[in-house]
């Protein structure tokens, strides 16, 4: 076989990266290449999605693997040692050049670099760090860099990664230790969490130093994130939400991504044969949202699950919770607190803010609320306004059926 061209390698190594859920490029420190320092690139806090793929996911970063060769043999992973996929390998210089070529044409916000493990964890981590170093030091690149770190690598190297990158991530892969042992036999839960703890400590220290010294080096200003594979083992949504909540609390994670286990070519026999419905992943993101922006505790999200510990697929978790705790409703939109209003199905953070602002000026009627919400029909059973009271609607046994989206619609998303 002759040497592979850049485009052939890109095809293989981008394809291998498509199972990574994250492509975020937001929440980092603000940077510009204008003025002294020069170079290329900027970040303005908010990430930009430069394109959308037909799978509905955005493309904001050049997301590739340095190599898809791997000495590990994790069953859910297309790049595991025993898989028969085509293999390729970029040099750090090639990835840096590709990133700059794309960035100069405004195709991307930066780079999300991950890698199969070659030779050793340390060697691999060195190559990832070297790519970031070339971009930052040789090209004064000010765009976004996300590095996937290798938990088994020397903590010094992981630290170095954080000095170059905006975000570092360490995938926990599976919600339970048993699942990890079974599906990722070469990985170690303790090691993964140890690496997360190290990153958390570095982030905290860098923040502290920044307060005292203007020129203290920044360390992963966009924080750390992780990814969990959903549906590859028997873990229920309650297990997953519990794990996510422990990760948020324990390691100060910025985001937990969920990736519905998807059919991979050359799958391992250990994997389940059916992939989970994509809607399950969506429900988990919704529950994540409830915890991050709506003040729900993990235990409350778990209350929304069915007897099997899974969130219902036909309705969103907020509605599921409200239907279980009907006694808390209806809420008077003209009197209820912000925290209470955030529990009303159909009212988002923005709508609640607008209701609170508007009711200083007028007593809200149902029409007024309708102007501020996407669907008044969804909200109506749970609120009172000056001219509306749902009476016994929240007691109706068929309320769930009335509010759940029609089955045909569900199929569309569940496909």
């Amino acid at each position, binding site marked *: 076989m002759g040497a592979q061209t850049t485009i052939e390698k890109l095809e293989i190594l981008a*394809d291998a990266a498509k199972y990574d859920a994250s492509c975020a490029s937001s929440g980092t420190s603000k940077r510009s290449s204008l003025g002294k320092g020069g170079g290329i690139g900027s970040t303005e806090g908010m990430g930009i999605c430069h394109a*959308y793929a*037909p799978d*509905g*996911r955005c493309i904001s970063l050049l997301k590739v693997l340095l190599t898809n060769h791997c000495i590990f043999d994790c069953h859910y992973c297309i790049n595991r040692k025993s898989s028969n996929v085509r293999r390729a390998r970029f040099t750090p210089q090639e990835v840096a050049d590709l990133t700059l070529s794309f960035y100069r*044409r405004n195709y991307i916000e930066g780079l999300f670099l991950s890698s199969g493990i070659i030779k050793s964890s340390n060697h691999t981590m060195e190559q990832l760090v070297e790519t970031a170093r070339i971009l930052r030091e040789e090209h004064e690149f000010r765009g976004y860099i996300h590095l996937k770190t290798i938990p088994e690598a020397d903590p010094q190297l992981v630290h170095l990664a954080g000095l170059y990158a905006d975000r570092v991530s360490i995938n926990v892969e599976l919600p339970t230790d048993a699942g990890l042992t079974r599906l990722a036999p070469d990985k170690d839960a303790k090691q993964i969490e140890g690496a997360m703890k190290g990153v958390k400590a570095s982030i905290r220290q860098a923040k502290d130093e920044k307060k005292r010294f203007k020129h203290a080096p920044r360390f992963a200003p966009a924080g750390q994130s992780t990814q969990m594979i959903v549906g590859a083992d028997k873990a229920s949504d309650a297990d997953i939400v519990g794990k996510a909540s422990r990760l948020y609390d324990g390691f100060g994670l910025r985001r937990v991504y969920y990736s519905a286990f998807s059919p991979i*070519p050359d799958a391992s026999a250990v994997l389940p044969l059916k992939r989970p419905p994509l809607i399950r992943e969506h429900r988990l993101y919704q529950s994540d949202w409830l915890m991050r922006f709506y003040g729900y505790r993990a235990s409350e999200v778990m209350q929304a699950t069915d007897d099997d510990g899974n969130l219902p697929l036909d309705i969103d978790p907020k509605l599921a919770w409200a239907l279980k705790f009907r006694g808390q409703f209806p809420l008077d939109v003209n009197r209820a607190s912000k925290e209470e209003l955030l529990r009303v199905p159909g009212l988002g953070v923005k709508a609640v803010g607008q209701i609170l602002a508007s009711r200083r*000026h007028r007593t809200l009627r149902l029409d007024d609320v309708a102007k501020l919400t996407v669907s008044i029909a969804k909200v109506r059973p749970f609120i009172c306004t000056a001219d509306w009271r749902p009476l016994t609607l929240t007691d109706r046994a068929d309320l769930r059926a009335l509010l759940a989206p029609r089955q045909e619609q569900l199929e569309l998303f569940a496909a």
Partner: protein
Amino acid sequence: MASAQPADQTHYAVKLDAPDDFAAWRDAARVLVQAGIAPDRVSWTEPGGSDDLFAEGARALPQPPANAPTPRVNKRFLSLAKNAALHSDPRRFALLYRLLWRLQQNPRMMEDKADDDVRRLTELDKSVRRDSHKMHAFVRFREVEDAAGEAHYVAWFEPDHHIVRANAGFFMRRFANMKWSILTPRGSLHWDGETMREGPPAQRGDAPEGDPVEDLWRKYYASIFNPARLKVGAMLSEMPKKYWKNLPEASLIPELVAGAQTREAQMVDAGGQNFAERPDTLAAIDKAIHSCRNCPIGEMANEAVMGEGPQDAALMIVGEQPGDQEDRLGRPFVGPAGQLLDRHMELAGIARSTAYVTNAVKHFKFAQRGKRRIHQSPTAKEIDTCRWWMESERAIVKPKLVLALGASAARAMLGKTVSITKARGEPIPLDDGSELWITAHPSYLLRLDGDARLKQEKLFDADLAAVQERLQELIP
């Protein structure tokens, strides 16, 4: 108002020099408010705007009274208004003035989100912000060589609103050390690395046609997409079709969408296995493995070999795969390796008849050499594929102890490659509460001679003895 002189009813027409000239609107609006000119007496026009009959009126602004207070606005109004003024709606300046006028009476009006004017302003601001965001996202530069032989990056973009000048800063901050131009039908921007120059509206033909890097970009775009998750609606809501014509990657979308199902099916097929429920009897497994074609070994001219032994055996012995003789006879461990195993089991005091004996891989893998069939080791992938059958057997027999013979059997049990030397002689706990012991495969002993053989047989005997001892503890 009986005694007062007739009120001034002059109509004023304000003409702005540029459609995005917020400063000029602000200057005029300030004077008009101070002079007490109600919104219905002012019309606002921009260049190219239709000066229809409503735009008739005094061109000169009124002189406000000397003691007129400065109009009050709050910060929120100002930031929204500045942005909303870039909208292409010709009525935007009138709306801004009406709001400014009303704010003088009710300074907190901006908080009333249900007010129609406030909502309209918010909508205008939102669509301008969206348009700006799409410009940040969808401008695609193409590289050309300028007169000096240096790289110059040129983009063509079609904004909906008058946002080009307002966004110059974004591109300067981002592409500071590049020379670039952004051409649009509403004006153009040129940055030479040091200064920003504005140019007249441009046409699509003024921009270059292609760039060699676009092939790489398209390859990336096609590869990063997961066909198993097709969600065209989600894509369209963020990347509406009107932008597609200027995005080099968009030409791929129809074929990617059309090919997604086939690609997903290929991925699933390449995944290989599509089992139904686990068979619940050993006989059903026996029957099923004969037609199993989940891996290439199933395609070879051979018979599947089922495990044998009592269904309630406390000990399960797992070998690698059937050999030549096992394949001919259809029974496990009947060849030379099996006979060797029998001898050592007897020595350790384990009756073979009490054990369930099976293989990690159910078919014989071989290479034909003339009339001889030479044993070939199964690949890790083949072991992993066949593992499902062995696990089905285990689920029925429920042994208390599993003895894996050799690396392939160990892999089938643990899903990972282990070193026999390191793993032997110690129990490894399994999920179901049973335990796994690992030792060498008897065929390995067969391949050794002299001292090496003696040494390995000793180790093998020690392992079997340990297993026997443990079995005595496990069986009440």
